């Protein structure tokens, strides 16, 4: 298992003050939000976020009588509530959010930089998740796009709460594309809804054709898989058809694109795919607004 997933020390760039708060108490600081989670997050340079843990307990007075309470609550209910809030916020803007998931080193950030350049003046923003460093957000900002780095500390995935904070720090234009680059990990991010419109899994051709079989949950959760680094396929005897067959074995409904972020091969189809999805969402948002106004 991952040691301290989701409850490590997390930072967000952009604020110079830190604050701590525990369970179930009101706290008085400059942010207009409430927290269900415990621990603290620290706001660093550029608005990047750092989340952390702190043991906190509540003492509860009360009666004593052995009894059974029907709970029937999803363990991740709180995350799902944060995700719903994020989703409503994005829907209000007609913004389309993609949760990019993969193992470390599949080329997510390079693909993202190439994607941003190819999208030209389309309004967009990037949320970067890593355990440590703001290197990826720096790479994105070098393209001119706004980016917020979230450092999860020991955490192995982004959660809905962290992404909500990152959205607070991004001044999203209506109908923006929002790219959320999750922590490189093919296991945990599959279970955490961030409020995104879809997950896109990136799989590089150097990783082995059976990777979808080894980590089926992530590829089952993804709507699209990008088979990246296709320019390297001849050098590592990669069988691209076998990759696709294994992807469809774990998720018969998945779409697959073959791309090389380095050479630009296949990038035009990925861009067209993104524009189509985002365009549909923007039209739906407009239509909902029109109906609400009538």
């Amino acid at each position, binding site marked *: *298992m*991952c*040691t*301290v*997933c*989701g*409850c490590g020390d997390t930072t967000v760039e952009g604020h110079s003050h830190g604050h701590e708060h525990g*369970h*179930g108490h009101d706290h008085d600081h400059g942010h207009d939000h409430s927290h*269900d*989670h*415990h621990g603290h997050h620290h706001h660093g340079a550029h608005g990047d976020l750092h989340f952390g843990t702190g*043991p906190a*307990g*509540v003492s*509860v*007075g*009360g*009666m*004593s*009588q*052995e*009894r*059974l*309470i*029907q*709970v*029937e*609550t*999803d*363990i*991740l*209910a*709180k*995350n799902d509530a944060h995700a719903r809030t994020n989703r409503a916020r994005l829907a209000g803007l007609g913004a389309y959010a993609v949760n990019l998931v993969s193992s470390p080193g599949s080329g997510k950030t390079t693909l993202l930089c190439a994607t941003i350049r190819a999208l030209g003046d389309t309004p967009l923003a990037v949320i970067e998740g890593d355990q440590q460093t703001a290197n990826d957000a720096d790479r994105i900002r070098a393209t001119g796009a706004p980016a917020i780095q979230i450092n999860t500390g020991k*955490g*192995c*995935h982004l*959660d809905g709460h962290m992404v909500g904070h990152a959205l607070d720090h991004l001044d999203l234009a209506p109908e923006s594309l929002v790219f959320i680059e999750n922590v490189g990990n093919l*296991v*945990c991010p*599959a*279970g*955490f809804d961030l409020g995104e419109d879809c997950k896109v899994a990136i799989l590089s051709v150097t990783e082995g054709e059976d990777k979808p*079989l080894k980590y*089926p*949950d992530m590829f*089952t959760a993804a709507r699209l898989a990008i088979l990246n680094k296709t320019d390297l396929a001849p050098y590592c005897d990669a069988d691209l058809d076998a990759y696709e067959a294994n992807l*469809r*074995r*774990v*998720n*018969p*409904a998945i779409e697959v694109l073959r791309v090389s972020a380095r050479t630009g091969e296949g990038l035009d189809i990925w861009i067209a795919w993104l524009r189509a999805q985002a365009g549909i969402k923007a039209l739906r948002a407009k239509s909902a607004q029109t109906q609400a106004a009538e």
Partner: protein
Amino acid sequence: MHEMSLAEGIRSIVEDQARAHAFDRVSRLRLEIGRFAGVEKDALAFAFDVVMRGSPAEGAVLEMIDLPGSALCYDCLKTVELNDRLDPCPLCGGGRLLPQGGDEMRIKDMEVA
């Protein structure tokens, strides 16, 4: 998977319930875990013991109830029960199956005092 995070989620729900129902202690807690939920049960049991310290559920007995996994077979178009995520369709032998259920992770009930 992310068993520590799950244990944190359980603790948070326990604390909410303790406030809502005014109890001090949980003696037994039952979870329902789907076969495809990706939960490592031993790891969750370990995380539970560690994370519940100082909470009303410290020392509580943790029970996990398995829920079956089901999937839609894209070859015979039937929904079938699967033991393992990569098993072939038990009806037609097909290999393209999309999970339909079995990713549950929820607290069913608690015995409290």
